[in-house]
């Protein structure tokens, strides 16, 4: 019995090690979205390109789309933009932009320099739709199915690996169901 007790620290250390190892690689900044499985919240916001033209949640109806939340002020958005161009041009993915807490002229400068992969851009200078979606930092990318229901939320930059490993399976599943 005494002999066995000598192994107690080892057992404890192993148990703590296994517990901690399970946490390695979990990104604590990636939170589950409360919006997954729910429809895109109702909104009525201007189009970035056509001031005065109002857009609402019906822009997501009919086809699976990515909703990309971006702003000219967001450095990581500059980084991911070439991948969005690639997705739109080479992969034919429908991307809706949500220009978040930005100014029109800045947004246009951004698109002028890097290109415009968006089918439509929702202009949200006050961040109201972003707030309703639970956006807490750009860039964020949502997968939205043809019924306008949020399927997935990715926080951070979209690149080839994120697309192949994370977003594409969700998109395929969403396409299969509708």
């Amino acid at each position, binding site marked *: 019995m005494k002999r066995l007790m000598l192994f107690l620290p080892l057992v404890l250390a192993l148990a703590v090690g296994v517990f901690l190892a399970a946490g390695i690689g979990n990104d604590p900044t990636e939170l*589950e979205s*409360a919006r997954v499985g729910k429809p895109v919240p109702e909104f009525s916001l201007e189009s970035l390109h056509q001031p005065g033209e109002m857009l609402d949640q019906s822009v997501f109806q009919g086809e699976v789309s990515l909703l990309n939340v971006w702003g000219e002020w967001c450095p990581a958005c500059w980084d991911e933009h070439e991948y969005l161009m690639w997705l739109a041009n080479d992969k034919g993915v429908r991307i809706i932009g949500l220009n978040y807490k930005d100014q029109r002229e800045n947004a246009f400068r951004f698109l002028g320099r890097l290109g415009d992969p968006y089918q439509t851009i929702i202009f949200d200078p006050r961040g109201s739709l972003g*707030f309703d979606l*639970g956006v807490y930092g750009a860039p964020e990318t949502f997968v939205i199915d043809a019924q306008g229901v949020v399927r997935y939320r990715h926080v951070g930059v979209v690149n080839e690996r994120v697309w192949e490993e994370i977003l594409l399976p969700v998109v395929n599943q969403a396409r299969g169901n509708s």
Partner: protein
Amino acid sequence: MRFIPVVLAALLALALPAHADSPEFYDFDTRAEEQRFRNLIAELRCPKCQNQNIADSNAPISKDMRDQVYLMMQAGATNDEIVGSLVDRFGEFVKYKPPVDRRTIILWAFPAIAVFGGLLIVAGVVLRSRRRGSDEPALSPEEKARVEQMLSDKDPSSRS
């Protein structure tokens, strides 16, 4: 040294704007309402800067969340409705006090488990030492004799 109070007053004035985003800029009808607001923003967690509540955080999202809390309070919402509306958007994460359910039961039960485990260990140690203490004297007669011999020996090395 008459200028010291002036300097102190100037320093104090400089120090105050550090709280520029705090509720001083939200207007409340009563003290109780203001206290309620402070309590609410103190127990909501900023999703961006994860170890701060939205009262302390300067992140833009925290400002938006404080505004939402304020607007809902002005519209007459209850605390549960306000917290619920933020949880609907940002998830359970924003609550510093998670609800007791299947996923969080270990979290909630852990303090009790730790205290109980500690009590068991203490009880075990006490029982064991008590049993040993009553059964046998600390030293056998031979050991006692040796100790006495050692203590009386001025120079232990000379024995051998």
